[in-house]
C-alpha cells in the first residue's frame, strides 16, 4: 500500500520535467507556486520544515514504545532535535506572515535558513543515536 502511494507521488515528479520542456529558444518558466506561498523560497522552506517536523513528531511518538535503554540513548538528542525544529518553525511562520502590525520586523530569509540548518544538524545527531541499540 505504501509503495503504491509512493508510486502515485513519484509519477508527477517524473512527468513534470518532461511536460515543462521549453522550446529551444525560450527559457524554462518557473514552477508554479502552491497555494498559500508567496515565493519559491517560502515554499521550499515550508516543505523542508514540514518534513523535518513530521519526522520529529513520528520519532517522539515512536519513542514511547522503546525500551528504557533505548530511550536513554535517544532522549537528549531527540529533545535537542525537537527544540531546534520548534525554533525554526516559529521563525518560519513569522517570515511567512511578513510584516504585520503585531510583528513589524519579521525574520529574514537568512535567519530562517540558519535555523533550518541548525535543525537539520540536530536531526543528523539524533539519527546517529538510532544505530546505537545493542
Amino acid at each position, binding site marked *: 500500500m505504501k509503495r503504491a502511494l509512493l508510486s502515485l507521488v513519484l509519477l508527477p515528479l517524473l512527468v513534470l520535467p518532461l511536460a515543462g520542456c521549453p522550446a529551444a529558444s525560450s527559457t524554462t518558466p518557473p514552477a508554479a507556486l502552491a497555494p498559500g506561498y508567496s515565493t519559491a523560497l517560502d515554499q521550499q522552506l515550508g516543505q523542508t520544515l514540514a518534513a523535518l517536523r513530521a*519526522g520529529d513528531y513520528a520519532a517522539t511518538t515512536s519513542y514511547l514504545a522503546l525500551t528504557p535503554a533505548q530511550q536513554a540513548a535517544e532522549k537528549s538528542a*531527540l529533545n535537542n532535535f525537537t527544540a531546534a525544529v520548534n525554533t525554526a518553525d516559529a521563525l518560519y511562520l513569522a517570515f511567512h506572515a511578513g510584516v504585520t502590525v503585531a510583528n513589524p520586523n519579521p525574520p529574514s530569509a537568512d535567519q530562517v535558513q540558519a535555523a533550518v540548518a541548525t535543525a537539520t544538524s540536530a536531526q543528523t545527531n539524533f*539519527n546517529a543515536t538510532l544505530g546505537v541499540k545493542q
Partner: protein
Amino acid sequence: MLGIVGIIQLALSLVGGILQNKGVITANTDNLITQLSGLGSGLLTSVLANKGTATAGISDTMAALGTLSGVIQTLKTNNTNAPADFLAYLDEADKSVNASLGAYVQAGKGFDVTMFAPVPEVS
C-alpha cells in the same frame, strides 16, 4: 533541499543500523541486506550526481526510499523473532522516513499552518 538531505541521512543511518544487526536477524534475509547495502551507496551516488538539479535529486531519492520502505516491511515480516529493540528500531525509522516524505509532498500542495505546530519534548 535540507529536508531531503536529512531524510537521506536517516535512510543511510537505517541501512547502517541494519547492517550492524546482521548477526541477529535470520539468515534468509542476506539477500535483502545485500540490497540495502547497495541502496545506501546508490542513494549517496544519486545525490552527488544530481547536485544542483533539485527535481532529479528528489525523484531519485523518493524512488530509492520507496524501495527502502518495501525492504523494511519485508524485514519486519521475516524477523518477528528478532530482538525487540531491533524491531522497535525498524519501526521507528520506517515511520519517521514515511512521515517526512508524506509531509514534504503534502506541504508542496499548499501552505498549511497546522504542519508547523510545536512538537512536545519527551520526558
